[in-house]
């Protein structure tokens, strides 16, 4: 009897493609996605941190530091940007503090370093004096400032040892008395050699892995500190972290997860409700409805509007809950929230209808939607924040509409972007929406007149 049962179940599995997909393909798909995300080694390339550098010092020392940062292979350093003005104007100008802040605010770089005037006198000072290097940071990315802070210490130490030696001797002389003439001559001869050797080493420096940042992570403070500014980097180069987005990081993360979870479940809701189309096919209700004045276009439009409204309600409930329980700052972001919620819900509704019209049975819809929604959620950032993904994964995620939706919510709640800045996200969502609706209508033709 057991043998008969085994045979029955095995035969069922062999003939049920959805069950096969769920049993074997979905786990492999997830394994692949998460391996790529957490391995971060898509194509063997370690994720590099993009930073902007502002040189307000304009000294030989600051220029050496910029060059050393550029030579660091864990960093992609931006020192010039396109000047504002006509789109055709490709003139690039050095980044100033205002532009650097804007780059961070827009999420184009997670960190910008400002090398202040007087940098030469502030490096390697043990008394905490002098102007510190300022690190303008995006609180949404808690990792990048730590990595950059650690790398900065390493770079300053390994690429500019002569500066440190000179400064150290100055400190020594200040507190213990001057060097003898013979010692002074020896030091003056040695410092250029030290500098030349460092520059040689820097030019031929081996690739540095992101782990270098981890080595120094303990020396850097996190961006989530309570004070808006912190000066507790205790390395050889003193660094002051300046979060350019005024909100607290924890609130930002809550808004991110509210959106991420809401969008994922919105997709499940949309596909489940759109699946009533298949129930109506089975029950004969669709046949009856199509025999009435209400045609297929009207039926799909009605379902789309309903699922959109339901989705908007679902997202709103999630954010209101976040506001009441986790102090999520919803009220100051209402216009952006409304725009993103409308387009996200409308696109998810169209996506649900597309899935339902594509499938032949409820069971098929259940299996396929589970597979697609989980993959989309993983790629699109509902399961793992996109800001932590490698550039390759970030690009791959853009094929999913929920990535655009989450990017839009991030712009609203983290970057405090004006409505106009949501245009790329809203535009893409509208594009997805139209494509899904057109596909759903085309697939639904099979239920019309034959």
């Amino acid at each position: 009897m057991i043998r008969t049962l085994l045979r029955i179940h095995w035969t069922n599995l062999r003939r049920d493609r959805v069950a096969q997909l769920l049993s074997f393909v979905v786990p492999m798909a997830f394994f692949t996605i998460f391996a790529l995300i957490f391995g971060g080694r898509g194509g063997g390339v370690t994720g590099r941190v993009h930073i902007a550098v502002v040189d307000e010092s304009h000294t030989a020392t600051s220029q050496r530091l910029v060059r050393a940062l550029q030579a660091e292979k864990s960093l992609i350093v931006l020192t010039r940007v396109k000047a504002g003005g006509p789109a055709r104007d490709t003139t690039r100008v050095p980044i100033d503090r205002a532009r650097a802040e804007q780059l961070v605010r827009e999420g184009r770089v997670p960190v910008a370093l400002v090398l202040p005037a007087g940098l030469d006198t502030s490096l390697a000072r043990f008394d905490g004096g002098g102007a510190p290097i300022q690190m303008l940071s995006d609180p949404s990315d808690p990792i990048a400032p730590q990595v950059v802070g650690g790398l900065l210490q390493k770079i300053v130490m390994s690429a500019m040892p002569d500066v440190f030696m000179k400064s150290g001797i100055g400190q020594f002389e200040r507190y213990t008395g001057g060097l003898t003439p013979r010692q002074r001559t020896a030091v003056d001869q040695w410092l250029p050699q030290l500098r030349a050797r460092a520059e040689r080493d820097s030019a031929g420096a081996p690739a540095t892995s992101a782990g270098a940042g981890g080595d120094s992570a303990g020396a850097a403070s996190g961006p989530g500190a309570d004070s808006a500014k912190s000066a507790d980097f205790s390395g050889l180069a003193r660094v002051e972290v300046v979060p350019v987005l005024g909100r607290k990081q924890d609130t930002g993360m809550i808004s991110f997860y509210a959106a991420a979870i809401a969008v994922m479940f919105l997709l499940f809701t949309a596909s489940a409700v759109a699946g009533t189309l298949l129930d109506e096919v089975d029950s004969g209700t669709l046949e009856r409805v199509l025999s009435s004045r209400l045609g297929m276009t009207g039926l799909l439009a009605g379902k789309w509007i309903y699922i959109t409204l339901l989705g908007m309600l679902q997202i709103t409930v999630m954010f209101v809950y976040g506001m009441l329980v986790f102090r999520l700052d919803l009220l100051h972001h209402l216009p952006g929230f409304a725009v993103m919620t409308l387009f996200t819900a409308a696109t998810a509704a169209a996506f649900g209808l597309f899935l339902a019209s594509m499938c032949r049975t409820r069971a098929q819809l259940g299996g396929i939607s589970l597979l697609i929604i989980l993959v989309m959620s993983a790629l699109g950032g509902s399961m793992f924040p996109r800001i932590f993904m490698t550039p390759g994964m970030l690009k791959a995620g853009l094929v999913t509409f929920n990535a655009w939706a989450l990017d839009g919510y991030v712009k609203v709640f983290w970057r405090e972007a004006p409505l106009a800045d949501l245009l790329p996200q809203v535009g893409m969502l509208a594009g997805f929406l139209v494509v899904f609706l057109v596909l759903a209508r085309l697939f639904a033709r099979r239920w019309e007149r034959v």
Partner: protein
Amino acid sequence: MTILRVEDAKKAFGATQALCGVSLELGEGELLGLLGPNGAGKTTLVRALAGRVRLDGGTIELFGRRLSATETRDGLGVVPQEIALYPLLTARENLEAFGSFNGLRGGALRDRVAWALEWTGLSERAREPIRRFSGGMRRRLNIACGVLHEPRVILLDEPTVGVDPQSRERIYEMLDRLRANGVSMLLTTHQLDEAEARCERIVIVDRGRVIAAGTLGDLVRDTVGGGRVVTVKLDRAPATPIEGLASEANGTIWRGPVRDVDVDLAAVLRRVAAAGRTVEDLEVRQPSLQSVFLHLTGRELRE
């Protein structure tokens, strides 16, 4: 007066010819039975009438006007075989939904919903979700949703399947009330006794063609003849077959045609006596629609 006319309707699905030139007419206030084995083309024809199948050839005229394939059939009501309702909605909500889909609004919709609840005997249960309803109640509501917009022609697909005799009677009472107001009906059914008892004319289709049409008397006369059928129940199965009769059940029931009851019935009883058996019961009746149907379409399974 002809309300609905189908002329030479043809439809193929790939290599399968579902309709091969079907023609029929439905008169005002008439109840026309459309019969045929499974796969004969009945459903395709009904769906074409409802505008759900685009014919390859032929024409459909409603109220004397030729219909296009895509045209909305406002004067037509469709009652599907399935309980095509929303199970979580109440009876009233279902009626309101289908009334709205068929163009009813405002006061007209309210009036028709009230009429339908009274007509179906569901006024007391109007606010209950229909998933709690019995099969008969759902059937009645299913019919009501198809006639709410007062169509003059109703297509009924197996309207009484799966219901008890009381519900069946109630359903035909409801339909008779509509017919009294001049509504015409095309009834497809496998319940041959119902078609025999209720329909004024019958059309039998098979393999996409009309193979017989007319009143029951016409069909009997044209197929199995004008005689009678005699059925005898014996005390025991005979050892050898009884000439002129065919056995059923366990060999104790025998049935066969008799042309002239006065002469041929006596001969049948003599043959039974010659077989050494006693007649326990005897019935003489006109050939049924079932006899006609099986005569025309054969006894072989089609699927």
